């Protein structure tokens, strides 16, 4: 094995690595942009809300309920005073 300049090897790694990272992200960007166009065309804003089967997130529901109550109570107090 001849003398190897490892720094040069590391620089090669950098070229390969940054190349692959950018290639990957570049393809990703293009695919995502294409996807966005396709979805906008074939699924025009079907109100991006809840899924088919709403798998009941209890805590959030509760939070919302609590919020509603707070709102109600606050309203009441404001009217009172």
């Amino acid at each position: 094995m001849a003398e190897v300049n490892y720094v040069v090897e590391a620089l090669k790694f950098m070229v390969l690595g940054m190349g692959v990272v950018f290639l990957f992200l570049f393809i990703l960007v293009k695919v995502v942009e294409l996807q966005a166009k396709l979805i906008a065309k074939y699924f025009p804003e079907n109100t991006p809300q809840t899924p088919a089967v709403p798998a009941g997130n209890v805590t959030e529901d509760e939070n919302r309920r609590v919020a509603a109550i707070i709102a109600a109570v606050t309203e009441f107090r404001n009217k009172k005073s």
Partner: protein
Amino acid sequence: MKLKQIFISLLFAMVALTSMSYATEHEDASEVSSEKKVYQPKSITELGVSFWETTGIKAIFDTDDGEMSADPAGESKEHVMSAFESSFGRIIMILIVFTLFYLAIAKGFEPLLLIPIAFGGLLANIPLAHMAGPEGMLGVIYNMGIANEFFPLLIFMGVGAMTDFGPLLANPKTALLGGAAQFGIFGSLVGAVALGFDLQDASAISIIGGADGPTSIFIANRLAPDMLGAIAVAAYSYMALVPVIQPPIMRALTTKEERQIKMGVQRRVHRLEKLIFPIIVLMLSIMVLPESTPLIGAFAFGNFAKESGVVDRLSDTMQNSLINTVTIFLGLGVGSKLAADKFLVLESLGIMIIGLLAFSAGTAMGVIMAKIMNKFSKEPINPLIGAAGVSAVPMSARVVSKVGSEEKPGNVLLMHAMGPNVAGVIGSAVAAGVLLSIFK
């Protein structure tokens, strides 16, 4: 009251009767446990002396007691500790641990990981207890989920379930900033080799520049398990130090006008886009570099489970009890590598220095890339958001937003910075895959 006592008596009576009649069938209990050492009677003084032999004070101050180090892999990896390792080294490590506690609690630096890691480090440096050995608590944890890379992947799954790719999907181009910031990895790789590390160790260290804890642990475990402790600590420390490290670099590389650039309102993202995105990322990584698929696969699974909207039970568990439990274990397990004999080596100092360099280089390149993109883009891009490309989700995006609003009150960059921020996570995983594929 009476009833209870009757029950208890009954229980006793039953046991007594039956045991006595059959006890003869059993071998004597003392014979069974044949491994027991024969106890040699000792005078009270001897007892005191032999107790003294087992105290920690004695173990720390008697530097030449031939104490063995501990390693989760067992005896093959253990060695007689040097005088330094078994005494002064431990004290230094305990001081370092206290520093980490201080940073985590008083300064709020990544406490969720620094506290378990530091406490693991404290336990690993206890003399005689061998808690980092294969039968100690830390060793059991290490073998359960770190040696096989299971815990980092579970963390990644949980992070996936917590991540919202909306900002990235609203403005996909910003993903390239998350690529540029990976220069932190490859630049510091060159630096590490220049400092004298061999290529494989240098690669393991440089991943710190990815600013991503689980990725760093995953790679360190594969490429340089002996340096895992130092690498993990460096990665989390610098992630914690993001608010200190990044702003000066961001300011140095941008003009005041650039920092004041306002960015438009993000478009609304369709639910389907978010649902399909993790699958796209995974399919791409399958095609381009399968080596990165454990990381990206776990991340994509968590994100897909969340965005599917039909398994909220599972996605909630990933984001809460599961990731919390694994965080505790991961921290303690990583901490086991903070034992003096593992951490206090010259390499650790190199790792700390290169880590800082890597972080800075990544930040700088992200900002520069954003400046370039700003020049060629129709819509204005505030170069500050390039700094968020290092990942360190969501800390660096917050720092960007803070610096931005300091320059121009009311200029909220947070959502725009989240795009490069999550792209940085993907970018680091890809970079990790490249390094793994080189050394395969």
